[in-house]
């Protein structure tokens, strides 16, 4: 068991997939010579050459559109959209083309496409470089959406995403890149759609994903000191999401708090809360609580952004509400 940084884990997954399957290509802005804005594609160009590591122009619509066509023609493209905010420019290709091709062509083809992108604040990058828009994509039949919380999952889930025959949006939280964690490349392959109990507990279930899992865990740590045992469920995948794991946990704790960095209203947490209110209602001993960003754009100033992103204190408040 080695330690690895999140960013490095992503790189390693890319390298291995490219080594094992010559149809895997990566493309995106400044990912070749520039090695990626977050240096995640470091070394790929040198290793695999410009035929498989394609620097693209600043043309998000054509990047994803071309990736769809490439996927129809024998390749497995891994496209990078530098910031998730820019996915606004590629929504047609993702939503009207990639996600629907298999269905609307009667099952004639699959679209083995991965779009890697970064979300989240914490870098004071401002309103157009910090958004968490994963709920949009989870609403689109035909897409899968993955959002790892730690290096090991980043590695294994990216490999699973690339192996997946269908289009997967792989969301990396920027603040995680520098985070180190345990990592065993020899672990059995992961399946998209399986959550992970990041911490077992009995009194309350905290469901989360991505960087917010760390926030949830640190809140759980504090709660432990108060004699409250919180279970933290790391969704890992948002579409599909692991209903069994969430329901199973709620059945034991009877209290549910959902935490994510995205804007709370109409976010991923809404679906989780709704499903529990529909299908595990009788298990609930208290109202569901959602913790998420307030309904405003991500502000630039350090002081503002700090108040904007849900922190451990916000999770604690949420848990206390659920327990009261």
């Amino acid at each position, binding site marked *: 068991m080695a330690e690895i940084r999140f960013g490095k884990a992503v790189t390693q997954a890319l390298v291995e997939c490219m080594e094992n399957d010559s149809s895997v290509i990566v493309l995106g802005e400044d990912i070749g010579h520039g090695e990626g804005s977050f240096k995640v594609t470091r070394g790929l160009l040198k290793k695999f050459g410009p035929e498989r590591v394609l620097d693209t122009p600043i043309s998000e*619509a054509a990047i994803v559109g071309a990736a769809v066509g490439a996927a129809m023609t024998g390749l497995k493209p891994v496209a990078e959209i530098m910031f998730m905010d820019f996915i606004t420019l590629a929504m047609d290709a993702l939503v009207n083309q990639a996600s629907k091709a298999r269905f609307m*062509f009667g099952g004639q083809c699959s679209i083995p496409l991965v779009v890697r992108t970064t979300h989240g604040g914490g870098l004071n990058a401002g309103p157009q470089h910090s958004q968490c828009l994963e709920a949009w994509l989870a609403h689109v039949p035909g897409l899968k959406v993955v959002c790892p919380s730690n290096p090991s999952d980043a590695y294994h889930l990216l490999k699973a995403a690339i192996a997946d025959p269908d289009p997967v949006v792989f969301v990396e939280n920027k603040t995680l890149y520098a985070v180190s964690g345990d990592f065993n490349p020899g672990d059995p392959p992961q399946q998209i759609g399986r959550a992970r109990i990041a911490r077992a507990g009995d009194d309350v279930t905290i469901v989360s994903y991505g960087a917010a899992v760390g926030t949830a865990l640190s809140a759980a740590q504090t709660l432990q000191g108060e004699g409250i045992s919180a279970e933290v469920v790391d969704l890992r995948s948002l579409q*599909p999401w692991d209903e069994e794991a969430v329901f199973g946990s709620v059945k034991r704790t009877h209290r549910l708090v959902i935490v994510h960095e995205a804007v709370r209203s109409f976010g991923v947490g809404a679906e989780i809360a709704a499903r529990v209110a529909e299908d595990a209602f009788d298990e609930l001993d208290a109202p569901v609580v959602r913790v998420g960003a307030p309904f405003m754009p991500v502000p630039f100033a350090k002081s503002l952004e700090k108040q904007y992103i849900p922190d451990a204190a916000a999770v604690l408040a949420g848990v206390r509400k659920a327990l009261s």
Partner: protein
Amino acid sequence: MVAGTGLSRNLFTWKIAGAHGAFGRPVAGADFSMDGGIPVAMSSPYHRERVRFVAIWEAAMPERKNFAMKDRLLAMIETMMLIRGTENRLAKLFADGEIPGFIHLSVGQEAVAAGVMSALGPRDTIATTHRGHGHVIAKGIGLERFFKEVMGRANGICAGRGGSMHVADMSVGVLGANGIVGAGIPIAVGSALGHKLGKTNAISSVFFGDGSQSEGVLHESLNLSSLWRLPILFVCENNGWSEFSPTSRQFAGSMEALARAFGLAYSKVDGNDVEAVALEAETAVESLRNGGMPHVLECMTTRGRGHFEGDPQKYRDPKELSGLEAIDPIPRAARKACSNPGGDSALRAIEERVASQIEEAVRSAMEDELPDFRKAIEDVYTKRREA
């Protein structure tokens, strides 16, 4: 009989629902007059430009000899007749309420499909538009499964889930018609990348309308194809119309200037002259297979019917509509073929084949069952997740 063409006109349902001709205007019942030239009645700036251009192109034609065309002409005529016959049949089925949704016919534009596809092989891929029936038929989609699809039946090529705007047949390289204007263009760019990296020597081609020239993704796609020097043939089907507006009111640019701005090869052709289209396409395809720059082929043609079936086309000058039959690519090609020995009987044979093929396809489609909902939902993902 249509004079000098070898065609017995009645095989095509020129009179749809008894009221309208192939081009959607009332027909007098008499044989239409063909002069093989350009009708003077066309008055829009677009049509004036088209007339001027065709004259120039034809003047240069004699020099362009390297093209053995005889049998191919018959084959292309058969393709065009298959498209026309199919679409006229669709128009009737639509009028009879047998087709859900809306359909966009390519009547009058068949020479583009037949000509370009005559230069492509089965492993070459194409992407097309909402007005894509002609392209997918010319590329070799099975007619029965085509009709079933457009009619929303279980055994349609897309299992009845896509319909007219989404016909696709991966087995013959049809990556799909598309309901989003311009969206096929980057898909074809990506397919060309697949061909290039796969070293298949296949090429990719995309058909897009003049209206879609306004979509930004065209710009991005031209650029990408140039940077990567991809084997792609961009076919701009310039029919002068973008829905209910002449494209001249929507697009201030010129396809030629754009292609050249990105360093692409470009040629322009009379899109109603199937031999001319084939010739230009073949030249372009040859160059592409030899690693040439991506090529834009602009085909000047005219939309024969409304934007969609049922479109009353009030926005169209009656003079323009009445001039349409005179430039119909099918009789024009047929007349040429007829002048070859045996052309006459060959055309009759084609006519029969086409007609029976269509009737057989329609019959089988009418009998086909309706699609199953459970099967549909299983195809949202490749392996249905268990949960």
